[in-house]
């Protein structure tokens, strides 16, 4: 029968009782909006994390060597790792030992507690993609002789030395280090605790400072994301050769880390969406409830239509279309509300994240919007079927007499 008239009728009956229509749709609106907000924020979060990984270098492989303790004959020296990288240049494009120090940087009377201090080799700058703005980066000779020199990030340069810094002295655990270079800012957001709040010294010097005898961390780079798995296998193989056990080291590629993060995020999103979907279910039941009321209220109309020759299918489709239209409108309102809400929440979140160099924007995915719309229409049709069928089966005589 005529679909356009059914739609017009449905819209008309919604328009005649706006408050009731709104309340009927509320469950669907809330459910759809919640799903959209959750997926948008989740997508935004994922994008932000991917962005951060990309900026750190997506092709980084971190190696942690726990070792077998002092005095063991089985240990890994930086030379071993350098040799490994030299052996497989097509998989391991760069290497640096990495010693993280938990120390406070002091310049004059000021202490900079947030500054990250790492001991690395002269190759680090090529691997990280940083650039020097003043002076020079660390050199082989600095590493070889464990000189007390350092390269500082843009934050320290601005805060402690008014934009300069080369030739100045900083103190790490009371030991004076001469600044030989300043790095370019890696993002527009140069602030305390950001990626630009850093300080690099030769790893040999860092070992002396922290009193450790061996290097426990290494960072490799591989030429591309595709070779990460092979590169990881090469490193693991070589470490297994040394230790004859896989218990004394740990190798992690950034691609794996990203995957693990994404998997975690996706799981979290699925759980949240499932919770939001309960609201959709409740909304569907609300629609069913109102449709049952509507069928009772319009028993006489159904009788009239039947007496004029409406078949069961005609009556059924009229009520199903009405339920579907109600939930579809609810879905559209929910989508608009959800997108708006996601935008507001997204900008709130990103305004609280000024301390980092990450940018956060809520991203409503087209497919989740379409799915939300489809699901809400589907719910209307599904929950509208029972009342519609009840209407279709009404006996025309009883329906005509109904008051």
């Amino acid at each position: 029968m005529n679909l356009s008239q059914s739609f017009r009728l449905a819209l008309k009956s919604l328009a005649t009782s706006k408050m009731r229509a709104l309340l009927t749709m509320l469950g669907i609106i809330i459910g759809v909006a919640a799903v959209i907000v959750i997926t948008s924020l989740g997508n935004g979060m994922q994008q932000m994390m991917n962005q951060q990984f990309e900026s750190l270098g997506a092709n980084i492989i971190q190696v942690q060597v726990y070792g077998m303790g002092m005095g063991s004959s089985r240990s890994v020296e930086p030379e071993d790792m350098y040799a490994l990288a030299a052996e497989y240049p097509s998989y391991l494009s760069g290497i640096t030992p990495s010693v993280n120090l938990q120390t406070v940087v002091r310049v004059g009377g000021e202490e900079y507690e947030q500054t990250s201090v790492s001991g690395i080799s002269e190759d680090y700058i090529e691997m990280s993609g940083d650039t020097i703005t003043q002076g020079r980066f660390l050199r082989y000779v600095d590493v070889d002789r464990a000189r007390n020199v350092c390269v500082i990030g843009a934050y320290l340069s601005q805060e402690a030395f008014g934009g300069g810094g080369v030739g100045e002295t900083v103190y790490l655990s009371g030991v004076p280090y001469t600044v030989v270079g300043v790095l370019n800012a890696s993002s527009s957001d140069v602030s305390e605790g950001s990626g630009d709040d850093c300080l690099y010294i030769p790893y040999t010097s860092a070992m002396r400072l922290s009193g450790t005898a061996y290097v426990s961390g290494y960072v490799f780079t591989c030429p591309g994301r595709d070779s990460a798995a092979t590169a990881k296998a090469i490193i693991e193989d070589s470490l297994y050769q040394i230790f004859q056990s896989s218990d004394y080291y740990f190798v992690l590629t950034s691609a794996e880390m990203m995957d693990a993060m994404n998997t975690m995020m996706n799981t979290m999103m699925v759980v949240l969406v499932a919770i939001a979907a309960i609201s959709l279910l409740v909304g569907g039941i609300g629609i069913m409830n109102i449709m049952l009321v509507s069928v009772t209220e319009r028993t006489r109309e159904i009788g009239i239509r039947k007496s004029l020759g409406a078949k069961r299918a005609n009556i059924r489709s009229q009520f199903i279309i009405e339920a579907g239209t109600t939930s579809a409108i609810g879905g559209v309102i929910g989508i608009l509300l959800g997108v708006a809400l996601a935008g507001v929440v997204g900008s709130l979140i990103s305004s609280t994240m000024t301390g980092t160099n990450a940018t956060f924007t809520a991203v409503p995915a087209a497919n989740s919007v379409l799915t939300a719309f489809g699901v809400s229409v589907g719910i209307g049709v599904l929950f509208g079927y029972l009342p519609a069928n009840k209407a279709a089966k009404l006996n025309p005589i009883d329906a005509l007499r109904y008051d």
Partner: protein
Amino acid sequence: MAHLIELRDVYKIYQMGDETVHALDGINLTIDEGEFVAIVGQSGSGKSTAMNIIGCLDVPTSGTYHLGGVDVSTMQDDQQAEIRNKMLGFIFQQYNLIPKLNVLENVELPLLYAGIPSGERRERALRSLERVGLAAKCKNLPSQLSGGQQQRVSIARALAGNPSVILADEPTGALDSHTGREVLAFLKKLNQEGDTVVLITHDNSIAVQAKRIVRLQDGKIIYDGDASDPRAVVQPMESGDPVAPDGTFSDGEVVV
């Protein structure tokens, strides 16, 4: 030639708790094309049941009903709907217009269910409204019209599908006597133009407007004949009393 309406030994029996009610108790009735028949009876006489069966809204418990030569007494819900749509036009006491639809849309309804395309539907509905003189009001809602006008809209709706039979169930019941007379005059005019009209009423003064009267009592036909015959308007003695076959009556009980 086959009759337009032909009921043979029609019984309609309801089970009301322990009691069995014979709403129709062996009815034999034929109506031909072009007739104007009034089915008269008091409440409980079975006239509403008869109207439901003639109107294909209900099926008899036993017996057959042929409408236009087709046996409709054993049809399913949807088949009956189609027969109602194609062959019958209803006029109800309470007009039974759908309040949310405007006059034109109301008149279009039977054509909509007949699957007629929108252009033709509109045209035929308008023509039908012209016949009752309400084409100018086609965009109004039923609530904006007077009772008489609403009943004329419902007549237009009954006519729109070009039915074989027009079934009018107490069409003047909700109207004042003046507009009631107008509606009756209109039904008469339709009959003169060739339409078959079946009028169901409890009111003798309305029934006599028809050419032929069928009087029901306790589910049986107690008179079937010309409306001008005085026996047609006999108000039977007491409900349930046997009525003499020759139609004995006392003067005091004649209501005109």
